[in-house]
């Protein structure tokens, strides 16, 4: 596919999310209507398009990733999660909202009919966890898209124009990095209405710094490369050079970084929901489930254990994949064994 087109599409997604805020969030995560279908298609398509672009350019050694068992595990975990996220309603027996009839259904321990037990209202925890995957993943991925979009813009601008633009933007980045992320997130969350859309914005607005630095580094390198100078000398407009020659080189490291950032975003969102500042009813997120589980930790351990395990497993999958991508880009062989016995 023409890289130009998918760049435009990729840029459009964060714009849509930002402009429509909660509305887009509802559409995306509730899977209603055409907008949601488009959004879902984008969310799945975009990483594949990127992967295809990097495959062609051999920027990332995909074969290496598939060979290394841990990276492979990460990749399959992520793909599996995407599958679960999209097809959630088809994967569960009970509805997540279906409350139990009899009192005996409440706080039921894990059993054959309810794999992860039931909660206070008799709802099946397993299906709530599965549906929670959708929300948690959706928010995390969307927020990373925002971060990457912002970070790429800032980093590329800084590196391309150099001098005082670079200075100002990088000082600004340093300033943003001075805040521990969670404090910044909490402060911003206090200023907006609760809801998945704004959470995406808040998480996105606090996670772009690393991407900006990486992109800046890459663009600075690429700027000095001869074919770029040649293109500029030929009168090719800057934006075109940037887009066609420089930015594709930044794809690979940014892809690795964004995979890792999804993990971070999931952790941040789950903590927010745990505090009650994240998604609200009727949305279900993993953090929210743990919050409910906290009050009954001793009696109904399954309420807190399973969602937390789900978070860990998901973040681990993204981390393994991200690590694998990073290694595929920059393999540093650590030969030798550290033994001095010779």
């Amino acid at each position, binding site marked *: 596919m023409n890289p130009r087109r998918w760049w435009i599409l990729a840029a459009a997604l964060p714009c849509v999310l930002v402009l429509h805020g909660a509305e887009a969030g509802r559409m995306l995560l509730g899977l209603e209507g055409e907008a949601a279908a488009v959004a879902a298609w984008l969310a799945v398509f975009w990483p594949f398009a990127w992967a295809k672009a990097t495959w062609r350019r051999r920027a990332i050694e995909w074969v290496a990733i598939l060979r290394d068992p841990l990276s492979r595990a990460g990749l399959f975990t992520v793909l599996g999660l995407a599958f679960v996220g999209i097809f959630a309603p088809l994967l569960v027996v009970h509805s997540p909202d279906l409350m139990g009839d009899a009192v005996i259904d409440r706080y039921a321990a894990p059993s054959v009919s309810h794999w992860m037990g039931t909660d206070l209202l008799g709802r099946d925890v397993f299906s709530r966890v599965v549906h929670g995957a959708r929300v948690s993943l959706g928010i995390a991925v969307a927020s990373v898209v925002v971060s990457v979009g912002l970070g790429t813009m800032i980093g590329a601008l800084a590196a391309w124009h150099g001098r005082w633009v670079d200075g100002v933007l990088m000082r600004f980045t340093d300033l943003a990095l001075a805040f521990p992320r969670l404090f910044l997130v909490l402060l911003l969350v206090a200023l907006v209405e609760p809801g998945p859309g704004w959470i995406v914005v808040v998480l996105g607005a606090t996670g772009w710094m690393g991407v900006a630095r990486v992109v800046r580094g890459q663009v600075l390198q690429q700027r000095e490369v001869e074919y770029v100078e040649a293109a500029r000398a030929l009168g090719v407009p800057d934006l075109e050079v940037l887009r066609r020659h420089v930015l594709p080189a930044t794809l690979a490291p940014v892809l690795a970084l964004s995979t890792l950032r999804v993990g971070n975003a999931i952790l941040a969102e789950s903590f927010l929901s745990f505090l009650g500042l994240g998604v609200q009813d009727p949305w279900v997120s993993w953090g929210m489930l743990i919050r409910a589980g906290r009050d009954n930790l001793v009696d109904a351990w399954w309420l807190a254990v399973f969602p937390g395990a789900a978070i860990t497993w998901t973040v681990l999958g993204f981390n393994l994949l991200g690590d694998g991508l990073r290694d595929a880009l920059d393999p540093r062989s650590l030969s*030798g*064994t550290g033994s001095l*016995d*010779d």
Partner: protein
Amino acid sequence: MTSTSANPAVDDAVLRVEDLVVELEVEGRRTNVVDGIDLELRRGRTLALVGESGCGKSMSALAILRLLPRPAARLAGGRVLFDGQDLTNAPVRTMRRIRGRGIAMVFQEPMTSLNPVFSCGEQIAEVRRLHAAESRSKAWERAVALIEEVGIDRPADRARQLPHEMSGGMRQRVMIAMALAGDPAVLLADEPTTALDVTTQRQILDLLDELCARRRMAVLLVTHDLALAAQRAQEIAVMYAGRIVESGPSDAVFRAPSHPYTLGLLACRPVLGKRQERLPSIPGNVPDVFDRPSGCRFHPRCPYAVARCHEEVPAAVEDGPGRMVACHERTTVRARGEWIDA
């Protein structure tokens, strides 16, 4: 295989290397980078091990102290006799006692071979503390004295300095001081002056001469510089592609070489004052370590080569008092005494 000493009875060799083999393994391919060499070092005398890069001379020196870069290289055969012991199968503890104390080594690149975060005095003093069991203050005094001995002025100040604060020549002197700190009987010098400018080279070599004589050390001078070997060493061993092709007292060997390679090395140096139309050269290249010719390894480049040279490895035979050569055509070479330029 051969011996540089003609008369074993008058043998005062402090270090003797017999049939040393070093195996190299890279990406599954194996070869003997050092393929059976013999050396003898005597007190108060310098033996130059001369050869082009890749012939295995540095590896030979490292093999003596068992400092080969693991796991790529390993000692695969032969004996190294020092003080009545075979070092090739001595326990590690013994090796550690001998390193720095019985046999010391000076390396080629003083900038990277000195630890950048410790002062020069400290790096010398720790040898004294280790091998001479001196107290901190005594060891420091000795270190300062050694720095003075190697010709550095203001030794007390210099001792406190870090390697990067010194010039290349000074760093090499510090390396030598460090090597001398244990009062070794043998000094292995691996291209000690290659990284230095010509004037400094001379100073360092003068220093080595003086120390060698004064302390009655045996010095192994590994170098690719034939002129250096001729000037500074009493004995010389010429190495080609892992084997020693000729050895003996240096003035005798240089006046009347018996091996074409030696002839070629001598002939191909530009001579000051002599008008030369065309500088002769040895045709071809040093063979790749994994792809060495059969028979005499020099035969593809040798103007004296005959059919036999291709099939049969020349044995090392005596060629005069204290001289050895490994060439089928040695008589012809001696007789003609000149390099036939192709």
